[in-house]
């Protein structure tokens, strides 16, 4: 008997430990659920952490209104299977209430507006620890994140003044009105996530699997045709075999040409990929420190 874990089992053990710490140290935690693979894996880990109890906190979805219908159907089914509560924060409502103003123009997106809705939702439900599926390998600003990441009473992140995190001793102490973002799968890479989905046979939305879809070529990516985007005259609608590597709002999530129609093929495709997964995300391309700027405001 070798007393050693594989890398996936060690990452799993670390994430489950962090999730249990959140439950033990906070009064009102929640999982930020986007419908993407990372938050699906996070939810799966939470299920494992508390089995045979149900997940003892709600899932929170920040709904931009610009969704893939598949994401919403998947979300509702998952919530039903798990028997957990779903809380929805609606960007449309924030717009209607006048809390935010909708962007206009060709590349208009509700991505940045989510921050306001997210912070309002955290306040409304008095969530003191919002767990997310963000990973350090995703983006350079995220490489500097803690597992337990403190947010002041405006929801802001101060990256230069973070609490040191040593061993597995996590400090969730805070004042009233402040909250934490917690990232249990900080140390996972895109590859780890896919290998784990394959290993554990986790159900994921069909959008990740290669399928035929009407798309236009814009900003170097295949953007899905939906009622939320304006197609210009010179842009040609094509039907192509594509899949998505990340899932966000339908207006900013580009697909890649792919014939990976099984999890095994996706793992192979990821192994040979030469572009990062967020390379197809328009939200990260608004300047060199787009992610850090949004994160400081309180973005995911």
């Amino acid at each position, binding site marked *: 008997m070798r007393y050693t874990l594989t890398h996936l089992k*060690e990452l799993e053990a670390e994430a489950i430990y962090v999730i249990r710490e959140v439950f033990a140290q906070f009064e009102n935690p929640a999982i930020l659920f986007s419908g993407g693979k990372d938050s699906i894996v996070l939810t799966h880990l939470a299920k494992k952490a508390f089995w045979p109890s149900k997940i003892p906190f709600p899932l929170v979805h920040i709904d931009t209104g610009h969704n893939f219908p598949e994401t919403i159907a998947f979300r509702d089914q998952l919530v039903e299977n798990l028997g957990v509560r779903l809380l929805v924060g609606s960007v449309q409502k924030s717009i209607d209430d006048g809390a935010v103003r909708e962007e206009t123009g060709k590349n208009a997106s509700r991505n940045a507006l989510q921050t306001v809705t997210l912070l309002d939702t955290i306040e409304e439900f008095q969530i003191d620890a919002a767990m997310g599926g963000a990973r350090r*390998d995703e983006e*350079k600003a995220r490489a500097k994140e803690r597992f337990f990441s403190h947010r002041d009473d405006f929801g802001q992140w101060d990256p230069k003044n973070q*609490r040191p995190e040593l061993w597995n001793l996590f400090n969730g102490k805070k004042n009233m009105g402040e909250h934490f973002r917690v990232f249990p799968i900080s140390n996972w890479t895109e590859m780890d996530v896919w290998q784990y989905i394959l290993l554990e046979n986790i159900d994921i939305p069909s959008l990740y699997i290669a399928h035929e879809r009407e798309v236009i070529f814009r900003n170097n990516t295949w953007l899905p045709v939906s009622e939320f985007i304006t197609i210009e005259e010179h842009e040609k609608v094509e039907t192509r075999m594509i899949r998505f590597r990340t899932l966000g709002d339908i207006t900013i999530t580009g697909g890649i040409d792919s014939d990976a129609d099984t999890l095994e093929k996706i793992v192979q495709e990821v192994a040979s990929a030469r572009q990062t997964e967020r390379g197809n995300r328009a939200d990260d391309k608004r300047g060199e420190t787009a992610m850090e700027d949004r994160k400081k405001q309180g973005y995911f």
Partner: protein
Amino acid sequence: MSDNSYLDMQLLRFTTAGSVDDGKSTLIGRLLYDSKSIFEDQLESVETSSKKRGVDHVDLALLTDGLKDEREQGITIDVAYRYFATPKRKFIIADTPGHIQYTRNMVTGASTANLALILMDARHGVVEQTCRHSFIASLLQIPHLVICVNKMDLVDYSEEQFNKIVKDYKEFASKLNVSDIRFVPISALNGDNVVNRSENMTWYNGETLLHTLETIHIDSDQDHVNARFPVQTVIRPKSDQYHDYRGYAGRVAGGIYKPGDEVVVLPSGFGSKIKSIDTMGTQIKEAFSPMSVTITLEDDIDISRGDMIVRPNNQPTVTQDLDVMLCWLNNSPAQARAKYILRHTTNESRCMIKEVLYKVNINTLHRIEDDKEIGMNDIVRVKIRSTKPLFVDEYNDNRNTGSIILVDESTNETVAAGMIRL
């Protein structure tokens, strides 16, 4: 990568120490690049950013220095984590800045590392910074040290120079408590002995750096002797199917647990037997560090977070008085007789620093006995009194049950990290 090789990969966490001048970014860049862990769009964006800054080579530091202030000032502020994998192992690099707040950042990076990679410049050999980094690695009990003697190309790949540096380092390291030290002569810039064997140093018969990282034996890095299970939370579903289920959730901090084992629960001292060890839906035959599991016992005893399940014949020390090597991590100095929140495993108490024994000069390892002020980046030996008993081991025996952090009650900040001595 063959189809199932990922089911047999291990995880190795290492920390890198050295300054930019030692070629640390170049080395990390090369490991990432040669293992195909840098993507085209990342490289393109680094190229664009390098040009914007008027640098004519591709500045690989921009890959890790992600924050705006870091990029503008050309410095690394905080520990950055980087990831790469080969078919044999997945690696997590905690890349710590060499200059600013080095102690705080290096201690943080070192706390979870299996291995420390220490860079030195072949032209300069063992310098003050080498000693400092090695001392912190030894203090934090990183099990393996790999000393990379870099820039061998600038000393004509001289075997003599390499041997001299190895000899100097060994002399210094005899004062440290590290069991496994290896030396690799490299040129990060040209790639000699990093991933591929150097043709310029045929006199070197050892392994390349990557091969060392891939094969170094890490199975024994965890404590598999002293059974320690700090309870994180109690799982009570109270559902129809699991009406009487009462499971103790936690991460094994040491030793091996099996169903049927006799156990004792601290602090109550009640004994029982392990009924089952559960992970979702499956009962497992044994649990060891660092697994996260749920343990059920034969008897109903009152157990809550912070309690520890151990073996009757191998128990930790139960004490309120701790002898600790403390690293101060906060800008505000320690206040005399101030109270702090102490976190140890899943346990929490309040404590007071009763006495400062001495401060360590981390460059010379000398004890300073006449300066007892504790400030940022200081390493001090102190006596701490906790308001309640803790179940502790010597840090050198078990990093999980031998470590503590102190939290300031007024700011909630983590102000210190400590290693327990018995």
